[in-house]
């Protein structure tokens, strides 16, 4: 189980390959890999978005990500899990979040991946500030 908060841009696909390479014990243990990648759009709520700053409460974020991945691992038989979440300033098309679940079978992999991303969105303390043509705005309500 690996959780990382990243200040800099990352390539989710390279991260998956690297993780599997660095964890050779995983090989042969999984038959399914479910992946979710969240990426910054260049539009939101009718406005063109030039950049987004993600603020977070680092120790609380880490604690809650560890807890909810732990919950997923106790609910479904997971071989391993990788979560990477950006913070700081992002540009459109940059990945925001990566969730990878390796499991023996796809039902568990999909379910655990879905659980982690859905729970993360409501429980992890992140706040978005967008930069649009009209200036900076906090995203306080999602539509």
């Amino acid at each position, binding site marked *: 189980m690996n959780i990382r908060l990243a200040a800099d841009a990352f390539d989710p696909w390279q991260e998956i390959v690297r993780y599997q390479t660095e964890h050779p014990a995983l090989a042969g243990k999984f038959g399914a890999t479910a992946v979710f990648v969240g990426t910054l759009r260049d539009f939101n709520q009718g406005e063109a978005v030039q950049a987004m700053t993600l603020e977070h409460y680092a120790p609380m974020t880490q604690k809650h990500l560890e807890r909810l991945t732990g919950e997923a691992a106790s609910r479904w038989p997971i071989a391993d899990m990788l979560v990477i979440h950006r913070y700081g300033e992002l540009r459109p098309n940059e990945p925001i979040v990566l969730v990878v679940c390796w499991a023996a079978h796809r039902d568990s992999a999909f379910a655990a991946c879905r659980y982690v991303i859905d729970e993360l969105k409501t429980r992890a*303390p992140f706040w978005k500030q967008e930069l649009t043509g009209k200036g900076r705005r*906090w995203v306080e309500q999602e539509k």
Partner: protein
Amino acid sequence: MSITVRFFASLRERLGKEQDIIDCKGIVTVADVWQACARIPVPDNVLAAVNMEYARIDQPVQDGDEVAFFPPVTGGAR
């Protein structure tokens, strides 16, 4: 004998500070912590945490706690 108080995102900007360290004398609940730091009533949608756990406004606090106040977290639409 102190409580560390942290503010995030739009609330940090509204209050003009990201951190306070307050004397815990006379402080019983999260609401007391807010009153010791801010001159405005607790905004309706503000969330609180005590030692990195989500907390109610009437939750007790102790010497050495870290209390945080922040707007709703924004994870994105499904």
